[in-house]
């Protein structure tokens, strides 16, 4: 082989080696590493604030990876099924259930997490335990809306003509379910919901698919009201002097418990369970929710002072049957697109 050839081969070999070394798992640190897949933005910041506490309590090194959405996270877990790269995963209930069904999530060993004794039973499922609950409600701009919104029914007020935005996709049709509930139906009697939302059409300006889209629409002034608001992401926009308002109507109330799930097939299962336990410890809980404006899962932890002003007593929380929703969602989606999301 010629010299030039040998040199080319050498360079290629060097490149391959560098690449291989870069991709190879780093040598095991003294501490066990636990990878938590969660959202970016406010969620990442909130976790970052309690990282040290968790690491200390669970004796692990905690690393975060970002998912763009719960559905995106699930897709990633399914793609990595043969060789998972994540130990723990936060999502929403319906997606966590889907993960359990598809086998990427392991049924939660309740007995091995001491702090679960302080978490209400309805927040714990085999797919995972809630680490906090984020509130759903109406997010609006006081400078665009001529009155103070208090109830879900207010969205139908004629004064909101062309000002309301909403979403079907976000929270798996929860807005539609809400509409059905206030018309005397439920997710099992969804026709009432469709009728009710059809009546909302004069008020509807546009639709969003993610809560960040909903915020953009409000900021640009293209909508005055986001009919299905998610508190954590708009939390930082609230406060004295702000034109933004968040309302949690008294009835029905919706809370999305944010579950953390144990991914199947990872080596440091015990350490991962210790991390869940550490997240559920009251002190960590309070710090977490302080930054998110959420309700802690551990009943001995306190909700942040800022939300106590506008959150009524949470005694009317409606528990959606997500199993039922999942089996009908495709049908609803197609119907929504044909009947509602058209002009």
């Amino acid at each position, binding site marked *: *082989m*010629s010299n030039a*050839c040998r040199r080319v*081969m050498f360079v*290629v070999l060097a490149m391959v080696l560098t690449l291989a070394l870069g991709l190879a798992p780093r040598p095991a640190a003294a501490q066990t590493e636990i990878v938590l897949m969660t959202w970016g933005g406010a969620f990442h910041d909130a976790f970052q604030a309690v990282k040290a506490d968790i690491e200390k309590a669970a004796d692990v090194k905690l690393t975060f990876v970002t998912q763009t959405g719960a559905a995106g996270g699930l897709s990633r877990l399914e793609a990595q099924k043969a060789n998972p790269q994540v130990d723990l995963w936060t999502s929403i209930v319906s997606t966590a259930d889907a993960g359990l069904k598809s086998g990427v999530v392991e049924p939660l060993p309740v007995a091995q997490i001491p702090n679960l004794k302080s978490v209400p039973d309805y927040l714990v499922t085999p797919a995972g335990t809630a680490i906090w609950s984020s509130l759903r409600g109406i997010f609006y701009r006081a400078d665009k809306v001529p009155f103070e919104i208090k109830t879900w029914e207010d969205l139908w007020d004629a004064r909101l003509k062309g000002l309301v935005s909403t979403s079907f996709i976000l929270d*798996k049709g929860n807005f539609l379910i809400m509409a059905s509930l206030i018309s005397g139906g439920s997710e099992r009697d969804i026709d009432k919901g469709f009728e009710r939302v059809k009546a909302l059409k004069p008020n509807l300006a546009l639709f969003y698919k993610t809560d960040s889209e909903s915020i953009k629409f409000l900021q640009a002034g293209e909508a005055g009201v986001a009919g299905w608001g998610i508190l954590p992401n708009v939390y930082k926009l609230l406060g004295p002097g702000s034109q933004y308002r968040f309302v949690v109507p008294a009835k029905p109330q919706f809370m999305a418990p944010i579950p953390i799930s144990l991914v199947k097939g990872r080596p440091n299962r015990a350490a991962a369970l210790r991390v869940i336990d550490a997240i559920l410890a009251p002190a960590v809980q309070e710090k977490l929710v302080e930054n998110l404006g959420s309700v802690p899962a551990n009943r001995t932890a306190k909700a942040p002072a800022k939300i106590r002003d506008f959150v009524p007593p949470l005694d009317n929380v409606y528990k959606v049957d997500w199993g039922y929703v999942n089996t009908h*969602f495709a049908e609803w*989606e197609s119907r929504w697109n044909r009947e509602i999301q058209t002009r």
Partner: protein
Amino acid sequence: MSRRAAALLVLPAIAVLAVFVAAMALTGLTSFAADAGRWSVKHYVRLVSDSHYLGYLWRSFRIAAYCTPITLLLGYPVALVMATASSGVRLGLTLLLVVQFFTSYVIRAYALMLVLGNNGVVNRALLALGVVDQPLTLMYNEFGVAVSLVLLPMPFMVFPIYSVLKNVEPNLEAAATSLGADRLRVFWHVTFPLTLPGVVAGVVLVFLFDLTAYIMPGLLGGGYFDMVANVIYDQAMEVRDQSFAAAISMVLLVATLAVLYLTTRWGARYAEPPRE
């Protein structure tokens, strides 16, 4: 260079290609998957028999088909100015387009919202001037999406045309002038035909950009003008019907390849006639 060294050098390219082909093949397989590990064409049957979903495909092709020529009409003069203007103007235009390249589509789409929205620059100006007394609906409809599909892929149109344009032999234009062609006819008979390879490249890139648009319909369509990529995403990620999503993807892929094939064949024939 020896064969072995050459093989080593093309290896990464082959690996990348293999991943692509594998992904395509997997999508193809998924689209034929039915329950309980059986194979079936039911997803295709559902797609073809449901005018609702077929409508999204048709809509995407339709809007790409008319937005692409508009982008060409607007982009060609920009390329022409870049190729002929002083180096200062050229640098300015290049920077403008390159900055676009490096700005996320979300930000660019949002910027467009601030222009076209009810509270946008256009409507505020029209209201202030008293041209209208109600804001015009420039967004959350086909118009808004079309505007974004015309403007946002502009660099994909301008750069290929520019790169061909600046290599057109200036003597050809001088020759045409000496033969009695005024500027317009020099352009139409000589310059433009010679830049067709660039035009074809630009048209193909922009057409595919428009066809597969995802963010623009989401933000500027306001949910009223979803395109096929939005439907695929919803089916795959939210409805979690991977097979149906794969079937739509496959139909889109085949249709795209067909368009690509026809365009490049037509373009090749026009730009470089076959030898006798």
